[in-house]
């Protein structure tokens, strides 16, 4: 055993041992092979909980209805009923505590997302009435005349 050939071998074996011991302390206990096997299920199990605990920001119309039933009711009888409140009003998150006031997107671009005329066959877009933004009162917000909660022409301001 007293040979110069073996000396580097002991060093290598020692290094492997150090790595294995370091790994023992560094790698979390729940890291390993899980349900989907080695190829797809080699991971730290606690990460699933991490992702489940991400904060929900979009609360949905039912959340809005708790305090603003009149607004939700009024839009529910119009073609705009299919649009979620938060699409224009922004994510509620913990409103009314945080944020106390939501920022409403009143821009022309917001309306044009659907109402810019793109008569594409085989797309539902063709069935939505549109306006040419370059000729239809350019420069002013649509909500100056139109009420998004009552988009029919009777709702004109």
């Amino acid at each position, binding site marked *: 055993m007293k040979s110069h050939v073996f000396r580097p071998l002991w060093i290598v074996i*020692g290094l492997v*041992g150090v790595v*294995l*011991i370091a*790994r*023992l302390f560094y790698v979390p206990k729940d*890291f*390993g*092979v*899980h*349900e*989907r*096997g*080695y*190829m*797809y*299920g*080699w*991971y*730290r199990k606690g*990460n*699933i909980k*991490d*992702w*489940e*605990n*991400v*904060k*929900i*920001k*979009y609360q*949905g119309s039912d959340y809005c209805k708790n305090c603003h039933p009149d607004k939700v009711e009024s839009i529910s009888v119009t073609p705009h009923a*299919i*649009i*979620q409140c*938060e*699409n224009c009003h*922004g*994510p509620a998150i913990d409103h009314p505590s945080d944020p106390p006031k939501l920022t409403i997107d009143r821009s022309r*671009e917001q309306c*044009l*997302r*659907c109402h*810019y005329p*793109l*008569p*594409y*066959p*085989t*797309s*539902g*877009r063709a069935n*939505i009435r549109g306006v040419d*933004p370059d000729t239809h009162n350019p420069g002013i917000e649509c909500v100056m005349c139109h009420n998004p909660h009552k988009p029919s022409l009777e709702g004109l301001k």
Partner: protein
Amino acid sequence: MIDRRNFLKYAAKGIAGMSLSFAAIDMLNPKKLFANKSEKSPVRWVFLVDTYKCVGCGMCVKACKKENEIPYDANVTRTWVERYVITKDGKFHADSPKGARDGFITNKIDLGLEGYKDIKNENIRKAFFVPKLCNQCENPPCVQVCPVGATYQAPDGVVLVDRTWCIGCGYCIMACPYGVRFFHPKYRTAEKCNFCYHRITKGLKTACVDACPFGARMIGNSKDPSDPVTKIITTERVEVLKSEYGTKPQVYYIGKDEEVR
């Protein structure tokens, strides 16, 4: 008779040998490597996109970016909407400006550095919008290539990224045939759509499904035969993207055309 030198030598070797516990070489255990798949999840999340219903408003992209804290003005997004325009001369054009975060509010096709291409409505043969998102493949190539076990498939089929474990090598971004992965500019780790894992595990729909006014996006559980999405997938004509790769994608499309890849 053992002398002091040899005693110390053997003692050091013995202690080193003993401290190398069997737990440390656990990863070499073949039984665990081929772990049994006995823990069957009752849920397998699948997605269904109806391209006839999509109008390209981009509300889904806006909601996704805010819900999942993807930097709003950075040109990265977990989901996006593509516009396809096929003209009567047989040419096809596609664009997705800013991933359609602001929808499609012009008929000009965004060609990137080459500017915009104006296509007259009367020259259009067919045109439509296609929302894209992670396919949560049954055989995810992005997971296979991860050298550190940072990305993986959860028991319910969703492919997740462990941000604390990702080293940012980018192999998964190269491996995904659908281009759904990118680097998160803030966390500097691989990022992808995870079907809003924090929402679906609490009984909610994903942010994009909730934001879509036209019902073009649907999420369901393919292990539940009474699930409306499962019913459509099993009884109607649906298609997946790039089936030739063998990844078994789990986002199904109604009305997918041959130009869509």
